[in-house]
């Protein structure tokens, strides 16, 4: 984000000496205020730090995971009865039912679960942004058709359709991202349409039109920048839903196929050993809860920080 149009106004070549004047209030730039407001919320900041750690974990998985996540350690990874072993010096968080290192699987799982969550949410918001702003700018028949289409997709029984799609197209990473996106773009589309319809009537857009600026340029230069903060918040708040959907699919065995370590799939696999070693379910469960709660907190924090109508308390 740039520092809004104060800067651009100052650069207008109306007065050749304008640049010599110091800015009147330096610290009121929108982005600086937003950053300040975000930092002020300690909880959101703490959640961000946890999320950064989780993301680093996903990115650096090959370097920090102690073992290969799919390698089965039949000798010391399983006890005499063939059951998973608990946390010990070798396997810090124990092993799963096939003698695979839990810690390594959790770390690699971040790639799948977090990756799908972020990708699906981003794609949903991007498609929603495109559909919403086209509908909002075009108005008339195109708007009506697009929004009725959104209504129809919204009244799909979501989980049935997800099950249907996955069953028809065979589970894989991209199918998972695709089905979550397919059902996730409608809410952002409505959100952005409302926003664009409101923006379209504002005076500064009228002014741009009067100056003879072509429509595509108005959209790119004057409408889209206003939607960016909204899009960031929408992505952040959409990730928990996408992670839930991915975890649910993996739990049903319809997500990323095993032996790939997805958190939901790990829970599902762990239920077989649940009674004797609840850690099998609790560890992947805890990491899902941590991720989702952090995304909710960061999303809410960003929403408050990026809202230009909110001033510092």
């Amino acid at each position, binding site marked *: 984000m740039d520092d809004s149009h104060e800067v651009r106004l100052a650069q207008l070549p109306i007065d050749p000496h304008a640049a010599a004047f110091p800015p009147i209030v330096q610290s009121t730039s929108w982005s600086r205020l937003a950053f300040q407001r975000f930092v002020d919320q300690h909880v959101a900041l703490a959640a961000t730090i946890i999320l950064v750690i989780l993301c680093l974990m996903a990115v650096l998985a090959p370097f920090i995971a102690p073992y290969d996540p799919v390698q089965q350690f039949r000798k010391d990874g399983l006890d005499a009865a063939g059951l998973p072993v608990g946390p010990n010096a070798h396997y810090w968080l124990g092993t799963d039912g096939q003698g695979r290192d839990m810690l390594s699987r959790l770390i690699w799982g971040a790639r799948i679960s977090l990756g799908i969550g972020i990708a699906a949410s981003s794609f949903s918001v991007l498609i929603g942004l495109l559909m919403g702003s086209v509908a909002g700018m075009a108005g008339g028949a195109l708007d009506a058709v697009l929004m009725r289409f959104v*209504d*129809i997709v919204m*009244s*799909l*029984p*979501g*989980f*049935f*359709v997800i*099950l*249907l*799609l*996955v*069953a*028809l*197209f065979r589970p894989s990473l991209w199918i998972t991202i695709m089905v979550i996106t397919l059902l996730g773009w409608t809410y952002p589309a409505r959100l952005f349409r409302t926003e664009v319809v409101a923006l379209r009537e504002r005076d500064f857009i009228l002014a741009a039109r009067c100056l003879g600026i072509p429509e595509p340029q108005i959209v790119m230069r004057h409408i889209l920048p206003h939607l960016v903060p909204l899009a960031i918040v929408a992505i952040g708040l959409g990730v*928990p839903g996408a992670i*839930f959907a991915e*975890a*649910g699919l993996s*739990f*049903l065995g319809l997500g990323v196929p095993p032996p790939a370590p997805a958190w*939901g799939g790990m*829970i599902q696999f762990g*239920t077989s050993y*649940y*009674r004797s070693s*609840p850690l099998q*379910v609790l560890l992947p*469960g805890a990491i*899902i*809860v*941590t991720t*989702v*709660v952090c995304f*909710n*907190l960061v999303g809410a924090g960003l929403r408050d920080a990026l809202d230009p109508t909110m001033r510092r308390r």
Partner: protein
Amino acid sequence: MLAFLIQRILWIGVTVLCVSLMTFGLIFASGDPAQMLAPTRQGQPPDPAVVARVREAYGLDQPIYIQFVRYLGHLAQGDLGYSYYFRRPVTELLVTKFASTALLAGLIMVTAIVIGLPVGMLAALQRDSVLDHGILIGSSLLLGVPTFLLALLLIYFFAFQLKWFPLGGYGTWQHLVLPTLSVALPTGMGYAIFLRTNMLSILTADYIRTARSKGLSEQMVAMRHALPNALLPVVTLASIDLAYLLTGIVLIETVFQYPGIGLQVWQATQQKDIPVIMGSVFFGALLIGFGNLLADLLAAWLDPRIRLGA
């Protein structure tokens, strides 16, 4: 009013038609159904002659649009076809399954409201107290737990350790407790937070100040003047949620092996039982359409400021 109802019901019809068409298209886009239906022996590709016979028997050899029109013709007579797997009419199968899901969904909704309303009221009236903060933290944690994980946690404590309730299944009231709680707890806490936010914003409204300046007790102000208006959006949300619950508790039904529509659809997708899938999506879209209509009607009935048909 009548015009509004007719318009909305027609629109539900159009929606359901489009949904059916999309599902139909998807099934055919994903591959030859006859190929999937033909019996196979241990991973060998099915015999082409058998596939051809299957195709003919199910009418899959005709052009897609003819198949769709025929499907719609049967649909208009209330016939959703026969389940490939159970060899029973889909309508009959789905009605029983939807009934048991409706029982669970109804219980979940009642429990969620019973939990959510008092908790939300309490949090709003004791704003910024220890209790309020506890409720806020508790709810943001609960809302971060996927329902199937919450279900597994409840199973661990109440079925494994305390042995109060059965692991899963269907039959007695004990079977319903854990599935209900695992969805109702987060949903109820969601309502509590929603109600709290509404209450807090309404308590600053002018008419509340008027009520206070008339000398009404704070309790009277909150219960008689603030609560009804704060409840309206919660009621709307709950009635929309109910429709989604009827189609959205697949995971809970799987965890508890509860024989509802979700478990049925999951099995049908595993067995490529196309009529059952089509029928469930059709029923589900119908339910969601009428659920949303009900939500609008309910909101208009409760709040005279809302005008229908806008």
